[in-house]
């Protein structure tokens, strides 16, 4: 996708209140793929002993990234909403590390977008979490 459209998408994600609250930044988008990162922050800690970020914050990041991938698909509709998301937590994220989510909308029908997402922290090739989801496709009254 062109630099202009990436910038528009970046600003759109940054303007969503909950994404802004979690500090999410969209870096890449286009053709059903998106990448969004979320810097480490102490307010996101889920386990006070280790400083590991809470799974809920990682879920929110993956949900956002998946939605962005759906919207960037060539056959996307006007809007989307999550129908279901199954998240597997493979390991604890490294405390202090930025979490980056990468999503692919691998199939799109008239009504549903199917998405795979993974989240990495740069500390290992094994993702922190992976998710699969189904998203609605709002096409308006046509």
């Amino acid at each position, binding site marked *: 996708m062109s630099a202009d459209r990436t910038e528009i998408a970046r600003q759109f994600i940054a303007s*969503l*209140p*909950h994404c802004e609250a979690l500090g999410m930044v969209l870096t890449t988008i286009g053709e059903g793929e998106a990448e969004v990162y979320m810097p480490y922050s102490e307010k996101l800690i889920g386990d*006070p002993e280790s400083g590991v970020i809470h799974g*809920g914050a990682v879920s929110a990041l993956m949900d956002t990234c998946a939605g962005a991938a759906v919207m960037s698909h060539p056959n996307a509709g006007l809007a989307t909403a999550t129908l279901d998301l199954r998240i597997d937590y493979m390991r604890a994220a490294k405390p202090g590390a930025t979490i980056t989510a990468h999503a692919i909308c691998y199939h799109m029908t008239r009504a549903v977008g199917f998405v795979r997402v993974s989240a990495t922290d740069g500390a290992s090739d094994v993702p922190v979490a992976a998710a699969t989801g189904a998203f609605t496709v709002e096409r308006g009254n046509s």
Partner: protein
Amino acid sequence: MSRAKPEPIQVVKERRDAALSALVARVPYIAFMGFEFERRGDELTAVMPYRPDLIGNPALPALHGGALAAFLEVTALITLSWSMVWPKIEAGETVDVLPKFPKTIDLTVDYLRSGLPRDAYARAEITRAGRRYASVQVEAWQDNRARPTVHATGHFLMPDTRTPND
């Protein structure tokens, strides 16, 4: 033969509430999200008071799906931890050393309705509590209990509660 006099209700309530507060206060993310827990006996109800920064779709407006998923996950984790602490509280122990939190293995979230810009409530039901693994169902609703907003099923790895050898 006489039985020991029952403890005054206020003492019992204070012990239970102190343990619940301690459990919840440990997690910075819960404070950040503004989640609260209410207790009736051993039953917990989580509350996510509405805040503008929980919105994910400003056009509708609707709560962010991720915020709702996080709310369900936190409700499940606190309910599981509470189930480990409860027998100790009832045995009259003050829970000075809280157990480690269970670890989420997976969570499947079913979005049933869009999240309204209003408070949300959630309760978790432990469907299986094994020594190592637990299965939990958790549901959140808003204005109408019979019309849930989101539902999730999750699997959790329970912390090792065996006392370490000194």
